[in-house]
């Protein structure tokens, strides 16, 4: 028990951090930023052409950026907050306490950053990480192709060696926000003769490069968050390959773990008020104050049980990772459950909203916010790897079941 004293002072430091963080958030998070964003337009994504949708959004972003808290756990030298895992947990809990939304949403934060921190060289980290942290560059993800979805490693976009450059030709699809993004992290085939996993490289380039074009695709939600992306002899310096040439699959998989962990969080993202109370607005309550639809009430209660349990599991996943006990494929398990749960949430919201949730275009319905959000959630169990693929990964990598 010799480390009791050290343990106690650590706990005291953490408590001080909590108190200070709470006070700082109280003083600095504008009231408007203490509720979830109501639409994609209400989310701040950063980038060269970024515009703030409101003054509070700008203020909140700038204050958090100045503390390095757009990326609280990244090292300070790369524009992060330098927080330890436990401090980061405290910050998340304190933001959650007041419902503070993230100041900056970005594929750079969720996906590329962690991959660069692990696989990037020093020049790449210095070049890209601070711009992600400061919201200066917006990134998109060039993974999927028309014939390479779940079977991502069969991708065909070619990168031909030409002196110090690669020359890239091919097509990506479902590239989220490609038409708004400044840069892309992209998977390309650098060795067409190798086995499919062994000839892929992970490369970064500017979307303003000559030969890049994008064509938006309309989603069933009526929004157009993604594109077909075409590369016609795009010239990219070889220095922009992350990790080793032909070993890009390692980087790609590592990035996917982070992407999946991020997407799984959707299942525990409260809509603000408890579902049961939202439902009461439209369904009504009986004399005892219970929802006037016993079957719906039961579905909501079961949902609430599962949502609370998932939140505990997400917390535990972080703690396990910190303790070095996490299975690398665990994010696939979380992604599966979180996205299926989020779909359940929106099925309940539609069912609770009844006729009120059907309107598609009007002020009253905030341009059909609920049905459009409902439809958007159907992609959760597809994007970042489908539910079936997640279950396959769990079966093979975690349970070690036989068969490829």
């Amino acid at each position, binding site marked *: 028990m010799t480390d009791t004293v050290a343990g106690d002072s650590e706990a005291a430091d953490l408590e001080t951090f909590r108190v200070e963080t709470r006070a700082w958030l109280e003083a600095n998070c504008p009231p408007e930023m203490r509720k979830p964003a109501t639409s994609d337009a209400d989310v701040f994504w950063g980038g060269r052409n970024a515009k703030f949708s409101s003054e509070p959004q700008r203020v909140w972003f700038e204050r958090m950026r100045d503390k390095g808290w757009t990326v609280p756990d990244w090292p300070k030298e790369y524009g992060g907050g330098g927080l330890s895992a436990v401090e980061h947990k405290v910050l998340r809990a304190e933001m959650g306490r007041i419902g503070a939304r993230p100041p900056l949403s970005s594929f750079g934060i969720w996906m590329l950053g962690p991959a660069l921190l692990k696989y990037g060289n020093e020049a790449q980290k210095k070049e890209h990480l601070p711009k992600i942290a400061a919201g200066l560059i917006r990134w998109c993800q060039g993974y999927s192709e028309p014939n390479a979805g779940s079977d991502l490693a069969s991708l065909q976009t070619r990168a031909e060696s030409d002196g110090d450059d690669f020359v890239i030709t091919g097509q990506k699809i479902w590239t989220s926000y490609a038409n708004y993004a400044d840069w892309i992290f992209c998977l390309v085939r650098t060795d067409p003769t190798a086995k499919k996993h062994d000839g892929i490289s992970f490369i970064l380039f500017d979307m303003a490069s000559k030969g890049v074009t994008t064509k938006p695709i309309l989603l069933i939600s009526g929004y157009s968050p993604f594109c077909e992306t075409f590369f016609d002899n795009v010239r990219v310096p070889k220095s922009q390959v992350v990790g080793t040439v032909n070993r890009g699959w390692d980087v790609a998989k590592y990035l996917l773990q982070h992407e999946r962990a991020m997407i799984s969080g959707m299942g525990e993202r409260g809509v603000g008020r*408890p579902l*049961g*109370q939202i*439902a*009461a607005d439209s369904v009504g*309550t009986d004399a005892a*104050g*219970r*929802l006037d639809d016993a079957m719906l*009430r*039961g579905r*909501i*209660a*079961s949902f*609430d*049980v*599962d949502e*609370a*349990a*998932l939140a*505990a*599991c997400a*917390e*535990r996943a972080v*703690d*396990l990772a*910190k*303790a070095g*006990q996490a299975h690398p494929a*665990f994010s696939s*398990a979380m992604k*599966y*459950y979180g996205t299926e749960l989020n779909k359940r949430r929106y099925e309940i919201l539609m069912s609770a909203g009844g006729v009120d949730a059907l309107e598609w275009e009007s002020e009253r319905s905030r341009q059909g916010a609920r049905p459009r959000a409902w439809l958007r959630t159907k992609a959760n169990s597809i994007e970042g790897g489908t539910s*079936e693929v*997640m*279950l*396959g990964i*769990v*079966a*093979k990598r*975690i*349970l*070690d*079941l*036989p*068969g490829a």
Partner: protein
Amino acid sequence: MALVLTEEQSMLRDSARGLISDKAPVSHLRHLRDSKDPTGFSKEFWHSFAEMGFAGLLVPEEFGGSGLGFVEAGVIMEEIGRTLMPSPFLATSVVAASALNRGGNAAQKAEFLPKISSGSLLATLAIDEGAKHRPLQTNLQAVRAGNGFKLSGAKALVVDGHVADLLIVAARTVGSPGEREGLTLFLVNPAAKGVAVERTIMVDAHNAARIEFANVEVDADSVLGEVDQGAGLLDGVLDIGRGAVASEMVGLSEEVFGRTVEYLKSRKQFGKLIGEFQALQHRAAELYVDIEITRAAVMKALQALDADIAKAASAVAVAKARAGTTATRAVQEGVQMHGGMGMTDQFDIGFFMKRARVCEELFGDANYHTEQLARARGY
């Protein structure tokens, strides 16, 4: 607090697992069942348990216990769940010890807690009266008589009721079924006049009894906690029991699942290991995810109990509800994926299915706890 076991807790788990898997594997339960053992558990093993400090795990050190918390109790329960060992640990060391420790006066604690720690006293809570767990429906009557009370009524599913040396009986001193006001807990000696204990052989071959009380006289000193105000004490004690049973169900689920996955890797049909069939792979993967999520929810509840019992109710409801649905799924898939083998008594899987069914009813099933959460959230 991190949702992972500390080093000390992991060591506790390892020593409990070593002891239980060595001395009381599933064949131990099978032997007790087949020999119609009158005690229904191994007294000798219970003494080793006490020597390891497990019997008094939750009892404060001043009363000879180990003074540990609910996370630690959950660690032991989980190991019990892995081999389905019938043990007084739940009724005596978790539920009764907590009731006495939280509700007892100085004299009551001094009298009973050291005996629980040493393993020499078995105690249990007698709560349920109807088919389902409905604590507020308690209707066993306690009427004032002379210096004390007279108890009349009956209790069902009294865990270890056939061997207990001390019964903690929930009774109604005023009001009617459904009301919080008017519940009182009594310490009753099962040898007292008017107490009739009938051992009930249950589906899971664990230990329980029906107990009738016909004008059983107890004196005023036998009240545990406050007269008429027992609901608060009961809430906390029941939540502790729920957290413990949820832990047992996590251990049980994981064990069934582990055995099932092994079977998928060894049984061949159609010239392949059945674990190669994607229809089974995906179901196994879903079950894995379910168990992991439930494990986290149960750990969260145990930590919440350790932090503040009065604020743990929702976390406990989530844990017990999840444990119920998860264990039910685990045992059903376990039997199904073993095919005809899973249906045989000779094979252990059926024992897990039976125990899961009893655990589901103990201290409230998934429906009960899901309903509690809905009420707590006001809809």
